[in-house]
């Protein structure tokens, strides 16, 4: 990191040493990537654990991923595989007691009460400093995305989680809506402290020989550089809707470079998440931070936080 530039940011009352946040589902239970030489969770401002549900889930059939033809996109359909909240609290959270970065939980469920019960168990752990509410998973039949496309349903889930914890609650929104501001406002009114924008875009890839989907669960969610311009606009629209309430946006989608991250900051993200990048090259986080610091230094901006929402629109 080059000297003289402050990459640390404040986010929902937490101090993040830099704006990079590992997206849920791309950093496992916070310990797996520590085996990689050149990577440590300390390279991240925060990490968000895999979606956790009340009961264990096996997830969707394989193949669960496919790289999109033409490049730059990855479709996944994991289906919220996780061992259930009891096992997460018992087996994984204790190992994160000395985690080198801020740890944020993530909850999902079929009904609002399940979200609340799961969040209550997770947030009882001192390891968990905030909880993200996944109302946007495209790969489950019940709940998931269905909550995220309806303002009332989204609000009911957020309110249920709000009711069980005093820790910051972050609503993870789906980009698969026409008006994301509508959902954002509903979540804020229900007590969300921040908004994550966005989960994956619903997507399909077809094998032209077999005429079948290339994903075992038929449809999946698209991530990677292919979605970056789409996600940027969603982040900006959410920022516009949330700024009056003083609610920050955690923004991302296809970030692969420091310049990508800066775009999200300018669009209104207070911090930005990386996901597909971690699956490709986790050790690249240090390169991103170097690039980001160099960009700020070149523009003589002392603090990254000064650029949040700094997009200058044409008249």
């Amino acid at each position, binding site marked *: 990191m080059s000297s003289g530039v402050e990459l640390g940011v404040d986010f929902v009352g937490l101090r993040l040493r830099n704006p990079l946040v590992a997206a849920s589902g791309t950093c*496992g239970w916070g310990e797996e990537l520590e085996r*990689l030489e*050149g990577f440590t969770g300390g390279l991240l401002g925060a990490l968000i654990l895999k979606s956790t549900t009340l009961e264990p889930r096996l997830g969707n059939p*394989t193949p669960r991923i496919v790289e999109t033809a*033409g490049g730059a996109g990855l479709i*996944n359909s994991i289906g919220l595989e996780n061992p259930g909240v009891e096992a997460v609290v018992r087996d994984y959270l204790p190992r994160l007691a000395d985690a080198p970065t801020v740890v944020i939980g993530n909850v999902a469920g079929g009904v609002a009460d399940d979200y609340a019960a799961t969040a209550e168990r997770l947030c009882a752990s001192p390891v968990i400093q905030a909880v993200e509410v996944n109302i946007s998973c495209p790969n489950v039949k019940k709940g998931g995305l269905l909550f995220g496309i309806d303002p009332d349903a989204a609000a009911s889930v957020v309110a249920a989680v709000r009711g069980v914890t005093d820790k910051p609650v972050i609503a993870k929104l789906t980009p698969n809506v026409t008006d994301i501001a509508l959902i954002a406002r509903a979540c804020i009114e229900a007590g969300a402290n921040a908004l994550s924008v966005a989960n994956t875009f619903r997507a399909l890839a077809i094998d032209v020989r077999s005429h079948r989907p290339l994903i075992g669960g038929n449809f999946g969610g698209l991530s990677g550089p292919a979605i970056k311009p789409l996600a940027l606009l969603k982040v900006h629209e959410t920022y516009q809707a949330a700024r009056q309430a003083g609610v920050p946006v955690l923004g991302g989608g296809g970030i692969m470079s420091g310049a990508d991250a800066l775009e999200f900051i300018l669009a209104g993200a207070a911090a930005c998440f990386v996901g597909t990048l971690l699956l490709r090259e986790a050790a690249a986080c240090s390169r991103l931070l170097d690039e980001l610091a160099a960009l700020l230094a070149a523009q003589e901006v002392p603090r990254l936080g000064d650029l949040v929402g700094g997009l200058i629109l044409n008249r």
Partner: protein
Amino acid sequence: MGHGSSPGLVFDEAAPLIARKQVSADTFELALRCPRIAPVARPGQFVNVMLPSPDFGYRVRDDAAWHDSGSGGRPFLIRRPFSIYRTYGTHETRGTDEPEAPHDTLVVLVKVVGEGTRQLVGLPVGTGLKVLGPLGNGFRLPPHGATALLVAGGCGWASLGLLAGELRRRRHPTYAFIGARTLEELPIETAERRPALAGGLADACVTATELEALGVVVGLAAEQGGRVYGGLVTDLLARFLEEKSLAAVRAYACGPWAMLRRVAELCRQHAVPCQVALEERMACGMGVCNSCVVEVILPDGSIGHKKLCTDGPVLDAAEVKWEY
């Protein structure tokens, strides 16, 4: 866990492609210089290879090789997993008293199955790749003195090459049954069919002949016949298990699902402990994304998942849920 040892450090090396050799119609050996990974790689482990591609941001990488790679400009987002087929040292030792040179190079056996593998085998020698590894648990070696049976279908041999050498170093009687659809598709060189060597791999390649020189008894099968057994490789295994009755035998297999299911069935019938190296589409290789799961039967009879990247790729044949 049962297999291999506890997971160790994983390296992400900038690895030049130092040699390439075609071994059959659609299969190539690629030698990658990986001085961190090669010395610690164990049989059955794998690497996750990133193809040369531009960074996806605006920044341009400095190293010219990354760009001038001839990859056709199609950026690949996710790495491709390959078994560590063989390792060797490229440095000369100073005298005959010197121990073997430390292994700094690993060889992967690549069968062209899609766009990623097609571009990978077309890269010119000298191209810089990024190689993540060693990954996975690897095979559990047999007890002292036991006989080892290696059963490979096509490119599945890639998972067993390193094991064959290790077994012979430990003086295990070793049999290798290798099958393919046609003689030409056998992923190894046979005495009758030895293409011109290229790229400095001459002293490092394992041919069927060289396997035999190692002391491995080799049985080849091609479904369409030819100068080898005409039929399935599992027929060779079945006949062996019927005819020989050995006290301590361990089987190791890699290949298509139907073949592995048959190997598992034969080994169960003959009470031979069997380990299989499995394949599934994979992304991170580090156990974070849950892409590469396979169904296993848990001790209580219920169905569970194992991640092939970290819980595998080697599983006990007895724990795999073979029927769907």
